[in-house]
């Protein structure tokens, strides 16, 4: 009895094995083994920040491409791309570290509400319906589509200001939030030396008076910053200033002259109090928009040198 059972089961097993072996040979699909190797070193977040459908798609693209120019895993950054390059024997494209920046500082205090939104709490839906709960139809709606889009838990809406804030350590500059924002407020900018960077935190294209009425922190397009900038990095178009991060040398003069505090500086050391005034004393913004210390006096020559050195160190 036992023998029959063993034999019959063994026979079934053998037939199955033969069949599976034949099938695997017959239907085998050749896949470049390097794709698996590349995928191994990728972060595996499948965020799509590289522009390909997941890490597998990116690995395939890397293997197929002749050079790695234009192929970048924003999550892993240079180290991961270096590993990929080593596997494939290609040159890795150097990439500047980037970070997402929210270009709106219309806090609840600075930007009074004019109506109450009662639809689905989604920026995409609200923005197809109307301009938003405040007088500024360009600013952040605050329903957190960017938060939902982020795979790395790197962006959160601050309940006090009603604005999203980026956690620089977690942000991988995958760009998911940039795509998710219907108002095009979020931008990927150069992370900068020691994460220091300067940007115009406003995208309001209304004329100065209208923008100012809607939001105390709005860029009014006055152009003072553009005049002040020694490097020609600032342009004013459609009543809103924009700082070209490839030209900006972090001198912070624009921050000092901005009458509404729309230009933000991040991660700079506090300025020295007794500094010689380079330009006219700036108008203090109606509402302090940031947590960072922002002394009245503009920066010193020393700090300018310091930041320049940092830029050069790169």
């Amino acid at each position, binding site marked *: 009895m036992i023998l029959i059972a063993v034999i019959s089961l063994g026979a079934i097993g053998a037939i199955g094995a033969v069949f599976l072996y034949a099938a695997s040979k017959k239907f085998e699909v050749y896949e470049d083994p390097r794709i698996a190797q590349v995928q191994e070193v990728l972060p595996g977040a499948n965020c799509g920040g590289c522009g390909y459908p997941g890490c597998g798609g990116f690995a395939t693209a890397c293997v197929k491409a002749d050079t790695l120019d234009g192929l970048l895993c924003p999550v892993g950054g240079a180290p991961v791309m270096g590993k990929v390059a080593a596997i494939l024997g290609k040159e890795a494209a150097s990439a500047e570290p980037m970070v997402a920046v929210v270009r709106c500082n219309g806090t609840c205090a600075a930007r009074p509400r*004019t*109506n109450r*939104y*009662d*639809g*689905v709490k989604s920026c995409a839906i609200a923005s197809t*319906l*109307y301009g938003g709960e405040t007088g500024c139809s360009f600013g952040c709606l605050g329903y957190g589509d960017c938060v939902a889009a982020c795979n790395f838990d790197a962006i959160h809406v601050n309940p006090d200001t009603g604005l999203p804030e980026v956690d620089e350590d977690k942000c991988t500059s995958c760009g998911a939030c940039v795509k998710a924002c219907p108002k095009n407020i979020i931008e990927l900018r150069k992370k900068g030396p020691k994460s220091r960077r300067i940007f115009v935190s406003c995208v309001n294209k209304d004329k100065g008076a209208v923008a100012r009425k809607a939001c105390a922190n709005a860029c009014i397009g006055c152009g003072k910053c553009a005049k002040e900038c020694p490097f020609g990095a600032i342009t004013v178009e459609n009543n809103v200033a924009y700082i070209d991060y490839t030209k900006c040398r972090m001198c912070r003069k624009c921050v000092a002259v901005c009458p509404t505090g729309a230009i933000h500086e991040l991660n700079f050391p506090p300025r020295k109090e007794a500094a010689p005034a380079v330009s006219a004393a700036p108008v203090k913004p109606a509402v302090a928009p940031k947590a960072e210390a922002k002394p009245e006096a503009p920066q010193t020559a020393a700090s300018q040198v310091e930041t320049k050195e940092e830029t050069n160190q790169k």
Partner: protein
Amino acid sequence: MENKLYVSPSPHIHGGDSISKNMYGVLIALVPAFLVSLYFFGLGALIVTVASVFFCALFEYLIQKFLMKKEPTLCDGSAILTGVLLAFNLPSNLPVWIIAIGALAAIGIGKMSFGGLGNNIFNPALTGRIFLLISFPAQMTTWPVAGQLTSYTDATTGATVLSLMNEGALDKLPSLSDMLVGNMGGSLGEVSALALLLGLFYMLWKKIITWHIPVSIFVTVFVFTGIMHLVNPVQYACPCVHLLSGGLMLGAIFMATDYVTSPMSKSGMIVYGVGIGILTTVIRLFGSYPEGMSFAIFIMNGVTPLINSYMKPKHFGGK
């Protein structure tokens, strides 16, 4: 202006329908059947129903409050409805501790493990009933004889129409008029076809359900058993007996039409109803269980997502 205006996408008015309105509507539709069960099974029916509702509501509350950590939604009436439907599927002499286990299976496994109302795949009351049927086959298949008003677990039990049919004792069946009124053995809510039909008309009138599911079940069972009866009238009972016996009415009107677990398009509802009808008849006539309604609905519940993705509503302008 001092008052800030509300802004929202259209439409700006709502019909005022709500989940709880629908749930309580079904409960109202169940009242006639409950009264009949009180008339025939007396105290037992009352104890079983109250216990079932109590435990279902209790488990729903506890699970939502302490396991899911969210605001309990007892008021929407869905747990009460599950309790009543579960009770209606039980014999009126079932001990309370078994009912409690059934309620836990219904609410805990059937509903909350999927995420609560709206997310469950299977009808919770049926889940509870089938759980009990498999766990306690003896207690679940001995039904008290109708008319013992003051007895509970001590009631004398007797055969049901379906068990008689299963044994091939067609000559001992009660009269059709008794079956219509409910003067027979069975689970406490399923006996009176008349009371259940009254509930059906109420729900149709209130637009709580549409006719598609119950009618397609009735027609399928009638036609299928009718053919079998014509083929062999000695072995297979006439279709009217099948329609009026067992849990068919209760299942077709109240269990199969459960919103969450039935298809959404009308064509899908008919496919679903026909499927239930065929499965029920097959189990009844050829299976070892005397009653197949619960299993039929349960199986079709599982097929519902598939039906939903294939049977789309009739599209304006055609393809």
